[in-house]
């Protein structure tokens, strides 16, 4: 009973915050609404016992995306967005309502219980040495998706970098540095960063057997790096540096190398020799964590605007 009340409350809040986020005219308020919406979705996933999804939603959906939106809104001059004509709004509303109604019908009136792959996922899990079925899906059964998603994230970073002014190519992104070296942000940074790094590493490590994993852990590591940059404790690196690029590419390179080695050693691309499956998967996860953390941090830092060799 209490569970049902809680679920209803979360559902009502999700819809309410979503509506408010769409309706508000102020950029900043909309972003805060979006982050709150992400946190509420995290609760919803947790209530569904999908802890991996909940962690990811909190880290990526609410966290990193919120920070990126905030930085974008600070960069933009405040613009008064005119309301669309009433006809267009009604049309969009009707379309959304139709899609929602059709989705609701499909979800609420199932023809047969939806088949599930859960049993098969667990049956084959032993051969991968993993304990968390989600990790099994991501690193073994659908490893190709995971590999290509890391390429997508990297490509998104290159897309952000493509907006660099020509003169600043090879330079570094400037972060606003607080005036006082001992203000609240640097102090906060010094206290939180060591703790955050430990938590991030733990979440990556535990991901093989329990909810967690590289994406979630890497996001926390990236957040600590971003905090250090924002607090002025460190500078964003120059995008022309070879070591940085190696760090970004390390995850996909290790993944690909092990995947290709699977062709002669285990009979197929992205197959693991059974005796070595667990250590190889861990090796990929470590390399991916470093690359994803670096990529996410640089996505937040944005395109370089400091010309190489010229310091402001």
């Amino acid at each position, binding site marked *: 009973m209490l569970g049902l009340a809680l679920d209803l409350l979360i559902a009502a809040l999700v819809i309410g915050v979503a509506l408010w986020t769409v309706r508000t005219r102020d950029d900043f308020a909309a972003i805060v609404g979006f982050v709150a919406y992400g946190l509420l979705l995290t609760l919803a996933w947790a209530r569904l016992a999908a802890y991996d999804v909940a962690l990811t939603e909190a880290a990526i959906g609410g966290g990193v995306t919120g920070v990126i939106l905030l930085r974008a809104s600070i960069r933009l001059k405040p613009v008064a967005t005119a309301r669309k004509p009433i006809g267009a709004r009604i049309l969009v509303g009707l379309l959304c309502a139709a899609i929602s109604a059709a989705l609701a019908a*499909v979800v609420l009136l199932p023809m047969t219980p939806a088949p599930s792959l859960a049993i098969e996922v667990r049956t084959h899990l032993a051969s991968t040495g993993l304990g968390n079925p989600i990790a099994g899906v991501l690193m073994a059964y659908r490893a190709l*998706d995971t590999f290509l998603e890391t390429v997508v994230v990297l*490509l998104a970073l290159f897309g952000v970098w493509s907006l660099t002014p020509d003169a600043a190519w090879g330079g570094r992104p400037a972060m606003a540095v607080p005036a006082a070296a001992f203000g609240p942000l640097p102090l906060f940074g010094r206290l939180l960063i060591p703790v955050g790094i430990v938590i991030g590493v733990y979440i990556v490590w535990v991901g093989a057997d329990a909810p967690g994993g590289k994406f979630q852990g890497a996001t926390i590591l990236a957040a600590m790096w971003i905090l250090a940059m924002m607090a002025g404790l460190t500078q964003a690196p120059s995008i022309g540096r070879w070591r940085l690029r190696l760090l970004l590419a390390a995850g996909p390179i290790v993944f690909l190398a092990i995947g290709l080695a699977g062709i002669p050693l285990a009979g197929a691309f992205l197959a693991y020799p059974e005796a070595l499956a667990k250590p190889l998967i861990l090796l990929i996860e470590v390399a991916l964590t470093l690359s994803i953390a670096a990529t996410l941090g640089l996505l937040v830092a944005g395109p370089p605007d400091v010309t190489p060799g010229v310091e402001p």
Partner: protein
Amino acid sequence: MTAALMATTPGGLLLVLAVVVPVIGILALWLVRARDIEWVAIATLAVNLFLSLATLQAVRASDAPLVYLVGGWLPPLGLALRVDGIAAVLMAMTGAIVAVTALYARGQFGFDPQGPERRRPMVFWTMLLAITGALNLIFAGEDLFNLYVALELLTFAAVPLVSLDGSRDTLEAALRYLVFALAGSVLYLLGVAVIYGAYGTLDLVVLSEIRGAEGALLLAIALMTAGLIAKTALFPLHLWLPPAHAGAPAAASAILSALVVKGSFFLILRLWFDLLPPGLGTIGANGLGLLGAGAVIVGSVLALRQARLKLLVAYSTVAQIGYLFLIFPLATGSEAASPFASLAWTGGVLQLLAHAFAKAAMFMAAGLVYEAIGHDRIDGFRGLGRLAPITVLTMTLAGLSLMGLPPSGGFSAKWLMLSASLGEGAWWWAVVILAGGLLAAGYVFRILMPAFSTPDAPAERLHPVALTRELAALSLAVIAILIGFLPLSPWPLLAIGRLIQVSP
């Protein structure tokens, strides 16, 4: 049946390599010295061309699709890659056009082998390789989520090409493209979720055997089709295309117009012919055909009214995409043993091929015209034929194919579609095809008439253009013409490995 379809075939490894090699190229690009990026990219695309031709040859020789089980896991647990006849043809087309574009783009974008690394060449070559890999995966993918990843790769690679110049206008065009493309992605992903919820698998081969006429399937296909239409720029969701394709640098426009929009189109084709139960989609197929007809007419009329060559060519893409959607009513309405043995199926694929080669050639030529005379205003084209004869020849040949005059790939495509519509008694599609051809003749002659006329005063060429670049553009136009010499009948290759072999 599943067991037979679901085992790695000899040559299946080619499909893995076709997806992986471009990714290796991208990673290498960012790690090698600045002066080496061009040859690394071109070498990667050369390997890719070889792989795609080998794939086509393997499918032809074995008369069966190539299959690879990634990680050795059988779907629905794992992912399979599968290339049938039509996918192999499109992979080979992509390999060829991308390779020729690379030759055309060599030394462009301020690339300086002696100087420091620059933004535009780095971004261009990275995204060109990414588009190649993404399209290979779209043609080879068999799992709807795997295909979603491919669509994301394609979008994230295509959008930065639009704003490569970095001007305000192109940034705006790129942003608009991004919004349309992401809205499309969301709708597609929603459909994927509905299908997974209903069937517990996303593998197209498995799905084609277990699905019935359930509401969930129909809703999912409707959502995914709507999303993919936005990415394909089918009328009336075409608004993003002209500024985006016209604003990109010529080499990028060629890829965007010739190939990128075909990726999402191919997925619509797969949803409608592999997933939708036969006989169910008649109304929907006619609806798609109607939108296609609208695209042919509206796109052509708008192309006629453009003052600038690149915008004209971009609006022509809107129109030529429209023809592709006539496949849906014509192939489902055909009397042939299966839709894949119909005239319209082959006609549609020929249209896709011919347009890809002709449009890539046309955009490259537009870029060369801009370099030769410093602008692309059509009213200033007088005497162009003397200044840049090879480029004008390229535009003429590509234009023939766009109009559908014989002998050309465009003619064969439109002739097959015309025969299909008359054969089925659906004369109204024939009217659209003919009207579109007339309007296309109008906009092509608008370019060619001044180009072939004698100038009032002898004009001068602003910049010399490398002969290899002119020949690169010409070679694509010649291929568009040569496609017209293929036999005018259904092409057995295009029916190899199709999932539904029986007529509804």
